[in-house]
């Protein structure tokens, strides 16, 4: 129903008369670009250009800009274009477009790719140092906040703490129990399957007991909590940072550490040992079920073997690590959250960083603890 836009060019000697016709609107942009390009050479070569606008049936900003560009091209190569026949209701828009794109901001020189790499490398190196500094800073401010709470116990945000405990502790129990149960069962099955060849099936129980209580129970739970709650902390604090909620908080004389971070980290430190305990029990239970149905070992024998194989020391070794892991997860999650900049993309990036970093640190910490406990003979 709409006719195509046209651009009639009538050269007469050095002069050029351009007559755009039809709808010069955004929907026809491909045609418009082609048309204006096709007369480009003629425009720059002629000494006088006339633009007769009387044939235009519809015009929008994009069309007006393409026409304006033609007339600027004429102006830049000599004589400015004479514009005639402008319909009254188009003149405002053409006038508007005449004002725009008059100056181009200074281009920033494209950086040398080698320098760019070196720059990135340097930034990453300084960034690593900064990471450590931020971690220590957060640890320090948490400690200060804790001292404040010890001095004035009423300043503890109890509601917030209980709510966080509910969210990251209580609500996590089903999934933690399920996964550790499955892991316990899988380890036991592998144990029976492989130890059977040496007739050493009964040692499966030793393996399950020690592995779960010392290492796996707490490690798996810590990794799950980092993924589940650490990421939530980062996203929450990050979006609060994005909407200037944290700035609002500090202007009211309340530090984000006291109000937001201490209750969250404290909740993690309390909840993780409990979750680790629940996880270990679930794993042992999973192992017991496999022992009964796959390893032909009744519950009574399983429990008796377990009793012989593990001591309270193993349990202590595992559970002692939990609060430290919780602290690391909490600090990483909260400080990454505070590093979020204004955009949605940076929120996503910081959340990923938080989870990756806290899982990495949890595993490193576990290794350090293994060395420590070995050297004190536990």
């Amino acid at each position, binding site marked *: 129903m709409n006719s195509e836009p046209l651009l009639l060019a009538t050269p007469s000697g050095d002069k050029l008369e351009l007559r755009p016709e039809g709808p010069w609107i955004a929907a026809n942009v491909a045609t418009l670009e082609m048309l204006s390009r096709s007369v480009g050479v003629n425009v720059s070569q002629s000494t006088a250009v006339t633009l007769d606008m009387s044939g235009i049936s519809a015009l929008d*900003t*994009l069309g007006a800009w*393409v026409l304006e560009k033609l007339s600027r091209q004429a102006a830049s190569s000599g004589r400015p274009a004479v514009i005639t026949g402008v319909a009254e209701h188009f003149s405002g828009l053409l006038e508007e*477009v005449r004002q725009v794109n008059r100056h181009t901001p200074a281009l920033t020189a494209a950086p040398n790719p080698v320098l760019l790499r070196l720059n990135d490398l340097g930034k990453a190196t300084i960034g690593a140092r900064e990471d450590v500094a931020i971690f220590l800073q957060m640890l320090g401010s948490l400690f200060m906040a804790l001292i404040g709470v010890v001095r004035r116990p009423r300043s503890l945000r109890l509601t917030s703490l209980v709510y966080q405990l509910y969210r990251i502790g209580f609500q996590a129990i089903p999934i933690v129990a399920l996964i550790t149960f499955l892991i316990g069962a899988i380890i036991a099955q592998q144990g029976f399957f492989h130890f059977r060849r040496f007739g050493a099936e009964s040692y499966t129980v030793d393996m399950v007991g020690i592995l779960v209580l010392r290492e796996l129970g707490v490690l798996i739970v810590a990794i799950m909590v980092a993924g589940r709650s650490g990421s939530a902390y980062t996203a929450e604090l990050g979006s609060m940072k*994005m909407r200037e909620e944290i700035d609002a908080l500090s202007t009211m004389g309340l530090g984000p550490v006291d109000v937001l971070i201490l209750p969250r980290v404290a909740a993690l430190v309390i909840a993780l040992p409990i979750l680790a305990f629940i996880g270990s029990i679930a794993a042992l239970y999973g192992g017991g079920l496999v022992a009964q149905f796959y390893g032909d070992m009744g519950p009574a024998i399983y429990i008796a073997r377990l009793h012989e194989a593990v001591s309270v020391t193993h349990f202590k070794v595992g559970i002692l690590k939990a609060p430290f892991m919780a602290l690391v997860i909490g600090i990483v999650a909260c400080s990454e959250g505070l590093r979020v900049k*204004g955009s949605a993309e*940076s929120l996503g990036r910081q959340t990923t960083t938080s989870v990756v970093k806290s899982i990495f640190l949890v595993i490193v910490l576990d290794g350090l603890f293994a060395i420590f406990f070995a050297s004190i003979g536990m």
Partner: protein
Amino acid sequence: MAEPQAEFAIRVRDLVVGFGRQTVLDHLSLDVRRGEILGLVGASGGGKSVLMRTIIGLIPRRSGTIEVMGQSIGGMHDRSTASTWGILFQQGALFSSLTVRQNVQFPLRENLTLSQELMDEIAIAKLEMVGLRAEDADKYPSELSGGMTKRVALARALALDPPILFLDEPTSGLDPIAAGDFDALIRTLQKTLGLTVFMVTHDLASLTTVCDRVAALADGKIVAVGPIRELLKSEHPWVRAYFHGKRSQMLQTQMR
């Protein structure tokens, strides 16, 4: 502009919208004529934004019908109607991970095939038309001032020169000079492109200078609609309070 030339760009009939137990719009009817600039006034929290968002299809309605350009708007907003309107949200709603330039180019890129060069020029042109400088084009939304955010959002709403423009408080947060420029720009565009503009505003200057008609929303209904001169004479208590309150004194003297 290819659609049959209906007289009304937007027709709202018996619209009921609510959240939970609260009914925000209660059997509201409103017509917006093609090519007019309609200003919508109403108390803060009275449901202006809700009305706008319901027309666009973002909020489900309980009952009533909505037609935009002769097509009834279903619960789902489909792409075909989406390109017929440009929307300025009250909070800007810029894409935070795109630069200002990319924000303005986004609708162009999605709906048209054009060269990068032309796209850059159009984006800068739009930004300058709403009063920003080319230097601001590479900033991210988090680096903008409140008024600049508004202007970028406006430039994005105008990117495709859509036949219908929904503006939610476009001049709030702008200085009076910028607000005046904005009014002039809307007038120019409306004259050239025959835009229909649905504008929520509390700016009395905008209401008097650019709006062809003004609708007043109170108690979930449109209680008065007409040119501003008629509204000033309206007997409805809320409309009287709105236009004859202390803050409207200046306007009153101006109109006399």
